[in-house]
Structures are given as C-alpha cells and as structure tokens.
C-alpha cells in the first residue's frame, strides 16, 4: 500500500504548451482520489506523469517517500486501467489476466495464484474458462481490471475506464469499483470528466482547469463550499445558477440587489462582504437549483419572492426541473414532482438564503458560501 506526494509538478511540452502547472498534492494510503475537470485540463497528463508514461518537466513525485521521477513505469509498482481496453479474443478469461505476467516471465504457480485471487475479488471465478465473446460488457470490464489486479500493485491508476460503457452499465460498474476499492484497500487515482462519477467514488476530489488545480476537497465540501466560480459551476447537475447582483451594505447587514429586490444575507456572509469592501460593487450570486422552490409551504414564510414564467418543464420521476429566466438570466430549479408549474405558467420562487454563494466578479473567487 502506498502514499504519494506530488510537489510543484509541471508538464511543459517542447512547443511551449504547459499542460500542468504547479500541481501539489499529498495522497494518503488507501485514498480514492479523483482528478476531474473538462477535457484538456491536464488530469490525464498528471496521471500519466505518475505512471511514468510522461516525463515530469519539473517538480518531484514521491511514492512512499521515494523519488520516482526517473524510475521506469514497470518499476513504480503501479497498475493502470485505461479507457480503450481490449481483451485477447482467442484467449480465455484466465489467459487474458495471466498474459502480461507470462510475458514478464513470472513463474507459473505465482501467475495461477494471482489470477485466481483476482478472479475471486472480481467475482469472475466461474468465468475463467470463457472467451471474451461469451461475456457481457460489465464482465469484460472486470476482466480488464483483473489484468491490473494480478500485478498486485501499490497504486491503481484509472483513466476514464467507464467512458466506453453505456449509461446503465456505467452506473453498475461505478458501484463495482467502489466495492473493489474497499476489498483491495489500495490507493486509487481515478481520472474522469464526469462529475457524478467523481462525487460518488472519491474520498477526495481534485478539480482541475487549464492545467491548474482549482480545489482539493471531499465531495460534500466541494459541493457545499466551492472555492471559485468554476468549481461551483462544474460540480452539480444541473449546474449552479449564477446572477450578477449589486452588493449593498447597511451597518453590519449586507444584501444583494437583484432586479430591484433586496436579498438579505446572514451575519456570516454579510461580514465577509463588508470585510472585502464590496459595498456598491457588482458580485456574482450563485444558487443551486435544489435551493430554489415553488412549494406553497416554503413560499408562505419566504422573505423574498421572485416571479418567473416557466419556459420548460422536465419530469424526471422523483423530481422536476423547471427552466425560466430571472432578470434576463436563464435559471433552473429542481422542485418536488407535485408542482403545478407547467410551461407558460407564472410561478413564484423562494430561495434558501443560507445556501447562497457569492463570488468576486473580477477574480471569480468565492467571497462567501
């Protein structure tokens, strides 16, 4: 089992393109770390640097306290599962898992032990004699993981391993991977652009953009306390609603003015805005769709109400998404399916004022959560 440390890691290509900038992260033993971000943000490049498949331009990578910058991939005690896996069609599941070890001239009895152990972990024991064409998509994916497990590595690196699967299978495999982490008890670093995968699997998430780490935190904290506008927008589906508002401070109380309506803020948020000197300035207000409601009980006691005309109504069974415009900005609300709102109807919305996020318009950094 292993801990990793990435200190001031940079990746710069000969043509001057900087894919990763000043990446710092300490990964504890047995952690499930997720690198998430839009495509081209440097997450796969970072993973490949950990694997040794890309040179580190500057900075230090340590595994268990040992500097690994110049160590060959095969000597780093890691195993990888990537997106475009292929199983050898003419080999059985057993041979597919054993193949890499055979070519590395590992003794037969060791191979047998490793394969049977991996098969047991992955629930593939009954399928060891089958050929890939006789397996389902999920079973094939498990065999691909088995090829990594047989190496008995200190660290698993996974680069979007579920991207090629359909939506249903992806959900199923997600829980399989979570179970696998519990059973193996190893350190896993997992790259994805899918924030649902990130939220459900990771013990900690690293959000990246343009080669720069934006925030490293637990899924819940990342969702509740994003450090900037990008993280706030990236985590959560549908994404957080953003509105340009004016900050008004009277005494110790701050409020945000939207379309002539004052949205009062609690003492903590007021203090942050006051201390930052935001009085009279335009700031960005963020509110998640689930923190807006049209429920009659919640409307009754609300301090501020907003009127809107519904553009689109989407029923998802357990919840409803309502799309509308507020002060010219497109908004989404996630409401109870009992809502009577329909396209074209006029609806009043209330906000959970404690859940409002405020961001600096210029720097895009969070002022208060």
């Amino acid at each position, binding site marked *: 089992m292993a801990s990793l440390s990435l200190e001031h890691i940079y990746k710069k290509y000969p043509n*001057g393109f*900087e894919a990763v900038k000043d990446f710092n992260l300490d990964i504890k033993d047995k952690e499930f770390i997720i690198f998430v971000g839009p495509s081209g943000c440097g997450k796969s490049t970072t993973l490949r640097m950990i694997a040794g498949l890309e040179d580190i331009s500057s900075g230090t990578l340590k595994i268990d306290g040992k500097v690994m910058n110049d160590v*060959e991939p095969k000597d780093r005690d890691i195993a990888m599962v990537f997106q475009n896996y292929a199983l050898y*069609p003419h080999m059985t599941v057993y041979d597919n898992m054993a*193949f890499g070890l055979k070519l590395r001239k590992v003794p037969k009895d060791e191979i047998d032990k490793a394969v049977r152990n991996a098969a047991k972990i992955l629930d593939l024991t009954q399928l060891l004699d089958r050929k890939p064409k006789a397996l389902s998509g999920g079973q094939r994916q498990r065999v691909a993981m088995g090829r990594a497990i047989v190496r008995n590595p200190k660290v698993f690196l996974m680069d979007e391993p579920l991207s090629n699967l359909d939506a249903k299978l992806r959900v199923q495999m997600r829980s399989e991977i979570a179970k696998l982490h519990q059973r193996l008890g190893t350190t896993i670093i997992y790259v994805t652009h899918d924030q649902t995968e990130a939220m459900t699997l990771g013990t900690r998430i690293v959000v990246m953009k343009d080669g720069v780490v934006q925030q490293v935190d637990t899924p819940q904290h990342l969702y509740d306390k994003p450090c900037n506008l990008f993280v706030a927008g990236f985590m959560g589906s549908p994404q957080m609603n953003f509105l340009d508002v004016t900050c008004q401070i009277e005494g110790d109380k701050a409020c945000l003015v939207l379309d002539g309506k004052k949205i009062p803020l609690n003492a903590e948020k007021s203090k942050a805005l006051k201390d930052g000197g935001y009085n009279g300035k335009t700031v960005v207000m963020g509110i998640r769709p689930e923190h807006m409601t049209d429920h009659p009980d919640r409307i009754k006691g609300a301090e501020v109400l907003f009127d809107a005309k519904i553009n689109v109504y989407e029923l998802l069974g357990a919840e409803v998404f309502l799309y509308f415009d507020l002060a010219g900005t497109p908004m989404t609300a996630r409401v109870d399916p009992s809502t009577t709102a329909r396209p074209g109807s006029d609806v009043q919305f209330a906000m959970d004022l404690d859940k409002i996020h405020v961001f600096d318009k210029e720097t*895009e950094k969070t002022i208060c959560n």
Partner: protein
Amino acid sequence: MISAQIVKNCLEELTSISKVEFCVQDTNGALYARTSNAEITDPGMISNFCRQAVDSQIIGDRYILKVREDEEVTFALTAIGSSDYTLMVARIAVSEIQNLMHAYKEKYDRNNFFQNLLLDNLLLVDIHNRAKKLHIIFTVPRAVVLIEIESEESDTNAEDFLSGIFTAHNGDYLTEVDENSVILIKAVDTTESYDQIQQAAQVCVDMLNTEAMLNVRVSYGTIVDDLKNLSKSYKEAKMAMDVGRIFYADRKVISYNELGIGRLIYQLPSNLCRVFIKEVFGDNIPDNLDNETLTTINTFFDNNLNVSETSRKLFIHRNTLVYRIEKLQKSTGLDIRNFEDALTFKIALMVMNYLKYLDQKDY
C-alpha cells in the same frame, strides 16, 4: 527456424494428454527440444536414420520418426514406448510440429512480404503473386498504423502484446521495421472508416501503456483500397509521426488527415524557413523565449487574443499582461494584440520549433 521453446511447449502439451515422452533432435543428432522425462537417442543413430529412406523405425523401447519441411527432413522425433498407441501419438506429434513449422514459415514470409511492400521493394507483378501465395487478399481497404516506442529502456516486445488483438484472421498484420517501432496493417470496412483506424490506434496506445507499460506514440496514414498502395499509407504515417513529434507533442495519436498547419511547415525547405524567421525578427531572433513569455503568448493565443480572459487565466493583473505584450513588441516588432502580427508570430514560433528539430536531427 521455429524456436525450440515452441516445439517444447507443443510436446509438453501432447505429453500431458497422452503420457508419452518425446525428444526432438536435428539431422546430426543434436538435441533441439524434449519433454522432462525423455531420454536422448544416440546422435549417431539419429543421423544414420535420417539418411535412410524409411519414415519411421522402432529401436528397442522407442519409435523414431522423421519430421519434414517442404519434403526435406529437418528433425527426428523420438517417442518413448513401443506400443501401437505410442506410434499413433508420435505421428500426431510429427504432424503437429510440421504444421507449426509451416505456420511459422508463412508468418515469416508474410513479415518479409509486408516489409518489402512498405519499403517499395516489390514489383507490381510480385505483389500480386506473393500475396496470392500467402493468402493475403489484394483489394481490401487498409491503412498503416505506425506505433513508435518512446520508452528508453524496455525488456518487453510491443508486438507480443498486440499480436493477440490484431490477428491475420481479421485481415490485420503486424510487422517490425526497426527495434523502436511496430507497424500494424489494419483492414477496415470501407475507405471512409477512419473511426475504426482511430479506435485501433487508441487501443494500441492504451494496451501498450497499461499492459506493457510502454510509452508510445501512434500515427496513421490514409486508407488505401489495395495492397500496391500500402507503401503510400506507410509514408503518410511516417510523416504524421514526424509532424506530430515536432508540432503536437501532447498528442498520442496523430492522423495524417489532421496535421493542420504543421503539414505545410514540415514541407518547407530549411533555408526558406530561415529566410522567413530573419524577415520576421531581423537580427533579434527570440531563440530562447523564457518560460514566462512563452506561457503568456500561448495563453493569449488560446484565449483568442482576449486580454481580460488571458490575465484572469494567468492570475496576473491586466496591466502586467499589457506590459509583457509591449515588451515583446519592443524586442520583436510584433504586436500580438493585432491579428496579423499574432498570426505571423504563431507561424514563426512553429517554424522555429521545426528548425530546432532539424538542427537536432542534423546534430
């Protein structure tokens, strides 16, 4: 010649099924392969047997049989035992080894054929004839995928990891032209099936990364409709590899069809490139732009020459960015806030990269 290890594996499998022990010796009686409990037959006896007209002999407690390749005796197989059952199993073993030798020869010939085909060493008439002999269909849409191993040291063979996926059975062939690259000749459904080639290229990268732990770069040429044009696809793949290495170092898969402006610059003669650089920068050639300047320029280009967006991305004040751009303008005479100057600068940077590559190559 087929490897002794393959013959040994084959014999061991037969022994585990039949319980008959085997030994294979060459025509001089030298040991080639044997199962663990088999005794070697006297070399003199073997060479004597090989000179005789008979195909099999029983000597004491063993049968000796000839193994032929193209009618010529290559080995003698000894099977320990004197029963009819032993003779039957020995015949199966001979047949098995002969088939293995035939398959190996065909594979070797195919390798040889494809290597010569890719390097334009064959006449059209020879291509037809040899393809027919080797059971290679002439008119199938195919493209050449070039896999270059970038890892410095490796004790694994990339071809071993790919040969199980891309098989002749599916119309795909693997060959090597040097120790650092593997060539995949990939058959596809139609001449427009570039998705299939791209997918195969991605599989090569991911398989070699994960299984062989090798760092590779893959390029591919256009799809050609028959064998005689395969060398064209190979040349394109080679060019794509070079252009990718110079201009698109961050990409692992490079298609000849998507080389962009790099394709044009790559075709320019070096003296013309030097004239262009001199024309743009005069005597102040920014040979080694510092990291900060290069990052600033690249970020500025990536953000469509937008000053506010670039300063935000770089976490610097807008005025700092403007100062850096003006400093660059003073030293190069190009104001990259202006589209034409930005275009010239971008091309000049690419040309400089190309010249650097050429200098390194010459060196």
